[in-house]
């Protein structure tokens, strides 16, 4: 019996070995190495030289670090709640018993499948100040049309607007959550004379609150690491670094200026920020999130 379980252990290890090796070589080692390098002066070409916490100290007084961090937090603070509201609203509409649900669901989800680079190039045209479809729509309504990506006041709102393009993911998850809400709760609410708004407020929202939490945390993680779209659409954060995000400065430090130590320190600070925000969300969640049967 002992022999068999040992053999099973070997077999098991053999089957998971690609994953173990992959995890070790491509994830665990780089993560630990980046922690070490964050305390070093490291330019890839020369041996890393330990310099204590100097990178972290420098970051504290680096104006561009703070600017990129504030830009990123601004973006996250707008795009995450807006994305949640929009995704939930769409899911509620789709869940209201429309005919052809699967078709609408597919249509709303489709944009989320467009590759990032194609999306960025497409929206460069949509936001084009003179020929963009967005501005022709606005001016036909008589609304003054901003220069979007060329105006420092509008570049971040423009990117927030663009991020709504991808709400399909969150919407599908919300929809699944909504379809899990037991019908008898609504029936009971109907008997008590609850209005549509009451049912949303007291039945639907509490029942899908775990899904809101999940989508919220995923949104925070995604938006704080926002990179590909602005890297293509607003290179160097132009105009005037109004759209220069944290991950762009990190990337520039690592691969353009080859300050790997500095970039590693930035990565770890971002990790800590995301960790704190996630823990904060979970703390809030214990008060507001309702788990069925929990």
């Amino acid at each position: 019996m002992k022999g068999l379980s040992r053999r099973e252990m070997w077999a098991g290890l053999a089957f998971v070995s690609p994953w173990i090796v992959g995890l070790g070589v491509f994830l665990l080692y780089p993560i630990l190495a980046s922690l070490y390098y964050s305390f070093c002066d490291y330019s890839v070409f020369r041996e890393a030289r330990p310099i204590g916490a100097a990178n972290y100290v420098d970051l504290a007084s680096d104006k561009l670090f703070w600017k990129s961090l504030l830009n990123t937090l601004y973006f996250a603070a707008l795009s995450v709640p807006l994305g949640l509201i929009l995704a939930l609203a769409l899911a509620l509409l789709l869940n209201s018993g429309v005919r052809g649900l699967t078709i609408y669901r597919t249509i709303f989800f489709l944009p989320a499948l467009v590759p990032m680079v194609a999306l960025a190039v497409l929206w460069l045209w949509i936001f084009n100040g003179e020929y963009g479809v967005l501005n022709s729509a606005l001016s036909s309504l008589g609304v003054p049309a901003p220069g979007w990506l060329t105006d420092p006041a509008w570049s971040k709102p423009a990117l927030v607007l663009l991020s709504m393009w991808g709400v399909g993911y969150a919407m599908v998850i919300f929809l699944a959550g909504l379809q899990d809400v037991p019908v008898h709760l609504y029936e009971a609410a109907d008997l008590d004379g609850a209005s549509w708004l009451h049912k949303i407020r007291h039945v639907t929202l509490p029942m899908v609150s775990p899904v809101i939490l999940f989508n919220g945390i995923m949104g925070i993680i995604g938006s704080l690491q926002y990179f590909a779209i602005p890297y293509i659409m607003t290179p160097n954060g132009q105009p005037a670094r109004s759209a220069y995000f944290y991950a762009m400065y990190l990337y520039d430090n690592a691969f353009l200026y080859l300050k790997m130590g500095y970039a590693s320190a930035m990565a770890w600070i971002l990790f800590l920020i995301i960790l704190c925000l996630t823990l904060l969300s979970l703390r809030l969640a214990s008060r507001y999130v309702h788990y069925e049967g929990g």
Partner: protein
Amino acid sequence: MLSRLVKALALVTLVALLYVGFTRESRPATTDGRVHITYWEKWTGFEGEAMHAVVDEFNRSQDRVYVEVLAISQVNQKTLLAAAGGVPPDVAGLWADNISAYADKQALLPLDDYLRQAGLTRDHYIPCYWDICEYEGHMYALPSAPHSLAIHWNKAMFREAGLDPERPPRTLEELGHYTELLTRRDESGRLVQMGFMPSYPGWWNWAWGYYFGGTLWDGRDTITADSPENIRAYEWVQSYSKKYGATDLQLFQSGFANWSSPQDPFLSGRVAMVLQGVWLGNYIDKYSPGMEWGAAPWPYPADHPEFADVTSVASDILCIPAGAKHPDEAFEFIAFVNSQKGMELLNLGQRKHSPLAEVSDEFIAAHPNPYIQVFIDVAKQGRTFSNPKLPIWSEYGNEMNAAFDSIWLQQTTPEEALSSVTARMQGRLDRALLERSRREGSL
């Protein structure tokens, strides 16, 4: 039995994975007895074809070395990372402004010994193109396709505005006056046409100071972005957005599409004058073939005629990354490209000028750009500049571009923006110099 099989399987998997993970790409033995070298190049399209023609010529000219070209996007970053990983190409086609940062990191092979053996000296070249390949007393590359800049103007738009179509502005004051005459707004006051705007095409926003006698670095230990000459230059830049309105210009500029397209504002006749490189002629031919245009040296400030004909020069370069397996053969190819024959084949194909001092009459006669002599002359007359040879240049350049934005958008005064760049980059330079002396001390 099964247990042993499973163990063996596990071991094989591990070894295979480790092998794939850690072995370097090994070159298949060549069957033709020639040394095959790899050459990474940025160009595709007609520029790429021109380089392919030179490579084919080289491969035909002898039977010991065979060059394999590979077109690579973001070739500079990929070459650097490949060199760091120990698997660089034998020849890399980068840009001259990569040299200081890469040489500082010892990512490039110094070519001094090769050049001595081949008898190639500065005298063979238009001097500025030799000089941009040098860093800290060593040569790290040779030029391939170089360029200088000139003002391009649209003659039809000049005629329409009542200007002499054959006479480009000679001073910056004239440029300003011409711009007034060439600028139009529609009934609602929106800009629909500009004579000239310093923010377009935006590739040399860091460089305006040089046309006023400024520099960005004193060559030793001081960042000079906030010198009076530079401040004057960016006050000149800001005078345009003051006069025509930052918001109006932004909106006008937001309609610009990719420059290599028919929607480019110069090619579509919405901007009448632009400071551009020798390649603009190619794009005029391609996207706006009927355009009447001219090219001339960039105007100078009227009170400083000694700054006439100042131009920015830069070049594509060929270099050998550190750790290349066949440096001798790599240099043989680079030297072939740098022969008069190779250079003229390449630069006629790419429609640029040759960086060599000697140029055949056929080259000039056959050249498709009618103004090619303008570009050669401004490069030769000696008042040329290129980006400061600082290892921190890529960061410095980004800072200057961001400062330009805030000056252009009237967010700050030139003095504020430039002194904040100076303060930041002086700190970076001090750090880099300290690091270098520490390194040299430890050697």
